């Protein structure tokens, strides 16, 4: 998905929660450009954001 005019990850999280309410019930971490973030981060152009559920490799 491509988003425009999203300033930071908190704003993106709000948009996603409004669009997909069931996300509130799911545990995930947010990554920006393949790094896990723990607090709000400004999003630059072409930032790659992902929501990752708990890992279960191995």
């Amino acid at each position: 998905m491509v988003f425009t005019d999203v300033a930071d990850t908190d704003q993106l999280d709000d948009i996603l929660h409004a669009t997909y309410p069931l996300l509130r019930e799911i545990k995930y971490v947010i990554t920006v450009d393949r790094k896990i973030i723990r607090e709000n981060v400004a999003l630059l152009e072409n930032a790659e954001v992902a929501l990752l559920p708990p890992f279960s490799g191995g």
Partner: protein
Amino acid sequence: MQQIFCEGAISPLFIAEVIQKYSGDAKIGAYNIFIGQIRADVINQQVVSSIAYTAYKEMALEKMQGIRSEIFNKYPVIEMEVHHSIGSVAAGEICLFVLAASAHRKAAMEACNEIVERVKSELPIWGKECFVEEGYQWKTNH
């Protein structure tokens, strides 16, 4: 960036080949290897027949590169290998192979253990446990 993913199960022959590959390096005095295999777990009377692995590959490879350099800084290891399946792996087949080699056994054992723990907790890989009958559940790591 070093590849860690292989499509489907890891064959025992491949593991033998990796050990063979290092046999010429006489600085190595110890290997510790971990082999993870799919269990036919029973969950609510349903039997797991396979696990289908998916991954956020680019991030996993970047993260693995970081882990690799941290391991080499922390332990006197000479070589390390990590191979993880992607796609479907049946019960009884191998899905993870980790090897650490060092001059003496302690470094290999400690490094191998730390690599396995970190592969399971830090790499963005997900396992979908598929049942014999039908349906699935997402695996959780403890």
